[in-house]
C-alpha cells in the first residue's frame, strides 16, 4: 500500500542515486587525468634528464679542450714566443669571462630554506650578487654556477635557473654563494648592506650563515657569448 511519504522519499532516492553515479563517473575521469598527467610528466622528465646529461658531456669536453690549449699557451710563454705580459692580459680577461677555475680567499654564504615561510626569490639572488659586486668580489658562484656579465637568474616555476641551468639544491640547503675577495669586507657588506639579509631572515624566515674563508675554489663557466649582431667598433 503506497503511503504519502513514499513518493518524496522515492524522488530523493533517485536524485541521490543519480548524484552518486555522477560522482563515480567524475572520479573515474579524475583518476584518468591523474594518470595521463603523471605519464606526461615522466616522459618529459626523461627528456630533461637526457638533455642535462648532454649538457654535462659538453661541459666536460670543453674543459678538456681548454686544458689542452692551456698547455700550448704555457709552452709558448716558457719558450718566450709570447711575452709574460700578453699571457697575464689573457689571464685577466679570462677571469672576467669565467673560463678558468679560480681560487682565493673570500666568503661562503649559505641560505637555508628549511622551515622558512617563503622561498628565496630570483630577485633576492640578483640583489645579493649586486651587493657582492659593490663589495669588490672578484669571482662569484651560486650553487656551482659562475656569475659573469650575462648571467641571468630567473625562476621557472619551482626551478631556479642560473646561466640557463637549473641549479641543484644541496640537501638541507637552498643556496651556497661563494665570493672571492677580501674576506672581512665581503662578509660585512654582504651581511649589512641595504638590510638585505635581515629582510630574508625576518620576513622570509631563511637562515643565513656567512663564513670567511682563507681559500675557496670557484668553478669555470663553460659557455661564452656568441656575438651574432654586435660588431666591434674602432674607438
Amino acid at each position: 500500500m503506497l503511503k504519502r511519504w513514499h513518493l518524496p522519499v522515492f524522488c530523493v532516492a533517485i536524485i541521490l542515486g543519480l548524484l552518486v553515479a555522477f560522482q563515480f563517473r567524475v572520479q573515474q575521469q579524475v583518476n584518468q587525468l591523474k594518470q595521463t598527467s603523471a605519464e606526461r610528466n615522466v616522459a618529459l622528465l626523461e627528456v630533461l634528464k637526457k638533455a642535462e646529461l648532454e649538457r654535462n658531456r659538453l661541459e666536460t669536453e670543453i674543459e678538456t679542450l681548454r686544458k689542452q690549449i692551456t698547455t700550448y699557451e704555457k709552452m709558448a710563454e716558457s719558450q718566450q714566443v709570447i711575452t709574460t705580459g700578453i699571457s697575464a692580459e689573457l689571464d685577466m680577461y679570462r677571469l672576467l669571462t669565467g673560463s678558468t677555475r679560480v681560487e682565493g680567499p673570500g666568503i661562503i654564504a649559505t641560505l637555508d630554506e628549511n622551515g622558512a615561510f617563503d622561498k628565496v626569490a630570483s630577485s633576492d639572488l640578483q640583489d645579493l650578487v649586486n651587493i657582492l659586486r659593490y663589495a669588490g668580489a672578484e669571482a662569484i658562484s651560486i650553487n656551482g654556477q659562475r656569475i659573469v656579465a650575462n648571467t641571468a637568474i630567473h625562476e621557472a616555476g619551482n626551478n631556479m635557473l642560473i646561466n640557463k641551468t637549473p641549479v641543484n639544491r644541496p640537501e638541507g640547503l637552498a643556496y651556497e654563494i661563494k665570493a672571492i675577495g677580501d674576506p672581512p669586507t665581503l662578509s660585512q657588506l654582504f651581511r649589512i648592506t641595504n638590510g638585505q639579509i635581515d629582510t630574508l631572515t625576518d620576513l622570509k624566515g631563511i637562515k643565513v650563515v656567512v663564513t670567511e674563508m682563507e681559500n675557496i675554489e670557484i668553478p669555470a663557466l663553460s659557455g661564452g657569448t656568441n656575438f651574432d649582431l654586435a660588431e666591434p667598433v674602432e674607438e
Partner: protein
Amino acid sequence: MPQKNRWQYVVAVFAVILGILLMVQLRTQQNYLRSNAVAKLEDIAATLIQVNKASEELTAEAAKQREKLNKYREGENIRKIISEELAETKMQAGYVAVSGPGLLITLADSEVLREIDEDFYYIHDWYLRDIVNLLWTGGAEAITINNERLTTTSEIFCGGTTIFINSHLVSPPYVIGVIGDANNLTTSLKMGTIMPILEDMQKTYGIVFTVETTDNVFVPAAAARPNFRYVKTMQQ
C-alpha cells in the same frame, strides 16, 4: 503537519544538500588536480627550453675550442693564434666597443609635483637590475647604461639617492642600450613583472619609461681595467 511527514521532508532536504556538497567538493578537487599537474608540466617544459638553449651554446663553444686546438696541432703560427685568442677574450670580457641593432630603454624620474608616496616618483636601482636581468635572459649580447659597459664586476648600486655603476655616479635619465634580437629582448621583458609596474607608475606618477627598437646601438668598451688582488686561476 503530522509528525511522521515532517521528518521525511527534513531527511529529503538533507539528502539534497549532501548531494550538492559532494558535487561541489568533487569539482574543486578536479580543478586542483588539473592545475597542479599542468603547473608541474610547465615547470619542466620551461626548464627544458633553457637547458636546450644552453646546450646549443655549449655545442658552438666546443666547436670553437676544437678549432683552436687544431690550429696549435697543425703548427700554425703560435703568436697569431694567441693574439687572436686575446682579441676574442677581450671582446667576450666587454673591453671592446661594439654596435648593432637592439633596443634603447629610457627611464627618468617624474617631473610632476610630488605629493605623498615620494618613492614612486624616482627610478630605483632595482628597476634597472630587473630590466638588465630580463635582457640577458632574452639573449642580449652587450648592455650599456649611460655609457657604462656592464661587465662581470659591474654593480648597479644605489648609495642613498644616487646610483653607481662601475663605481661611477650615473644620473637620470637612464638610457639602457642593448644589442640583440629586438623581438627576443622585448618578449623577455614582457615575461617579467617590471614592465607593467613601470607602465603603471608612468600613468600614475609620471615617470618616464620608453622602449625603442633601433638599428644601431653603440655600446662602449668597459673603461677601467679590473684590479684583481685576490682571485687566481688555478693551475691545472
